[in-house]
């Protein structure tokens, strides 16, 4: 028997065994039902535990109490969400735009790459929010810029890294082809490099979207204008309004999901346009 035949038989058996073993937990509907069931169960246990064990609100308020606050304070919550969301959006776009420009430069000019690479590596592991207080001194306490800048710097990193990767992932065979056709550097960039990098830019934007919201909320803990979600959470907690603080937390979670969802959609569209599956 040849090697190939043996392997095929072995694989066939393994495959058969896998199929026979296929448990109900592998079914498609479980993918949707299991997380929903877990979420519902967690909420139920949470609610019951708060009442049965008499857990104090400072430790964990009941979901129903949070919902009450969410409904009664919806106006203020919406305003704070818009304030934080605007900062996050402007910062995200600013950081992403700068990231794309610098990544494009770094992919073409070697010394810029060498200069920027260690700085970006450092920024990636450093708590950027720490800059918020000094930025407030620089811009004045009434300016939105400190928070926007914190968001921009934090969002810059993932967009820069993925964009540069996208610009560099050009396959050698495409470069050979461009050279064989005597294409100019600019032609090669326009036809091969840039379209190939577009899905990567959006991939970076998806990662950055979560970071942007998180940074916008957290930057408010460091002082400055008191009109956003972060400062509301802090002040509610300081006044022992724990269910209210949790309601603002829920709002910031929703904001994070909205940002993530929109950028994820954009990423999917971009990679479909480019026919490049992003893994």
């Amino acid at each position, binding site marked *: 028997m040849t090697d190939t035949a043996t392997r095929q038989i072995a694989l066939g058996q393994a495959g058969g065994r896998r199929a026979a073993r296929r448990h109900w937990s592998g079914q498609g509907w479980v993918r949707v039902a299991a997380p929903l069931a877990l979420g519902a169960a967690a909420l139920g246990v949470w609610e019951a535990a708060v009442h049965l064990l008499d857990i104090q609100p400072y430790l964990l308020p009941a979901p129903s109490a949070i919902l009450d606050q969410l409904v009664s304070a919806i106006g203020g919550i919406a305003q704070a969400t818009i304030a934080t969301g605007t900062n996050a959006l402007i910062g995200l776009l600013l950081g992403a735009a700068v990231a794309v420009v610098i990544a494009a430069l770094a992919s073409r000019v070697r010394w810029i790459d060498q200069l920027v690479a260690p700085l970006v590596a450092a920024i990636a592991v450093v708590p950027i929010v720490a800059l918020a207080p000094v930025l407030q001194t620089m811009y004045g306490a009434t300016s939105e810029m400190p928070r926007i800048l914190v968001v921009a710097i934090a969002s810059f990193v993932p967009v820069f890294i993925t964009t540069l990767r996208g610009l560099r992932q050009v*396959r050698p*065979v*495409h470069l*050979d*082809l461009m*050279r*064989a*056709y*005597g*294409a100019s550097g600019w*032609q090669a960039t326009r*036809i*091969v490099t840039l*379209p*190939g990098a577009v899905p990567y830019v959006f991939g970076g934007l998806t990662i950055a979207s979560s970071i942007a919201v998180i940074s916008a909320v957290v930057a408010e803990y460091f002082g400055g204008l008191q009109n956003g979600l972060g400062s509301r959470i802090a002040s509610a907690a300081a006044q022992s309004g724990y269910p209210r603080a949790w309601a603002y937390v829920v709002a910031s979670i929703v904001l994070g999901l909205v940002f993530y969802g929109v950028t994820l959609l954009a990423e999917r569209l971009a990679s479909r*346009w*480019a*026919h*490049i*599956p992003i893994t």
Partner: protein
Amino acid sequence: MSAVEVEAVTKVFETRTDSVRALDEVSLTVADGEFVALIGPSGCGKSTLMRLIADLDEPSAGEVRVFGMPARQARLERAYGIAFQQAGLLPWRTVRANVELPLELHGASAAARRARADELVELVGLGDFADHHPDQLSGGMQQRVAIARSLAEHPRLLLMDEPFGALDEMTRERLQGELLRIRTETGAAVVFVTHSIPEAVFLADRVVVMSPRPGRITEIVDIDRPDASADPESMRESDAFFRSVTAVREALHGRDTAAERGATASGATAPEAAARGVETR
């Protein structure tokens, strides 16, 4: 005029630790309209030789001329079409737009591009797939698109680096037949890199056998081709085909056994020598 003249070309690749002589004083002439296959084990420099002809790399010594021009000028004047083992299609372009690419790069009008691309897509039998994207095609179909693209500018020379290397045997044989038909229609010269003996014999007028370390041409085998009027597929079962296959195989293996003997003599243990033999085959 010859399509390709390679004169005493040497190519040395410098790595950090040492230098590798990929080609050592190689000379080769390909006549206009001639089909030449380059064959040899991995590392014999066959792909390097093709890349020098395409001016994708530059020789360390010696000279390469394409239709009498230096290789660089030939490249800039688009004297050849090229296809690689990977189809190298741009995933965001449709089949038609991929075939149009070389024409677009050189400023052909949209109408002219479209007409030529439709013609070529038809030629390689993908008329129904012109508006598909590469990810919707099989490997064989992608390679046909790559061949269509290489023909876009009516080149008198085709350079092909193992274009069917990643395909299954059935697809491979079908595409070989199609390549012969296309080549008869266009009358272009072809330099075709492969490591399949039957493929080289089936396609080529001459098979250039190469050996590694350093890369050299060891033998050139002339192939008995049937009349152009005969069905090329019938050649696969002819006695002449098997004789040529044997001739090429012996040209290749003569070197192999010599290398093995050399390895044993220089003190390598028997299993190592056997392992090397398996590796090169």
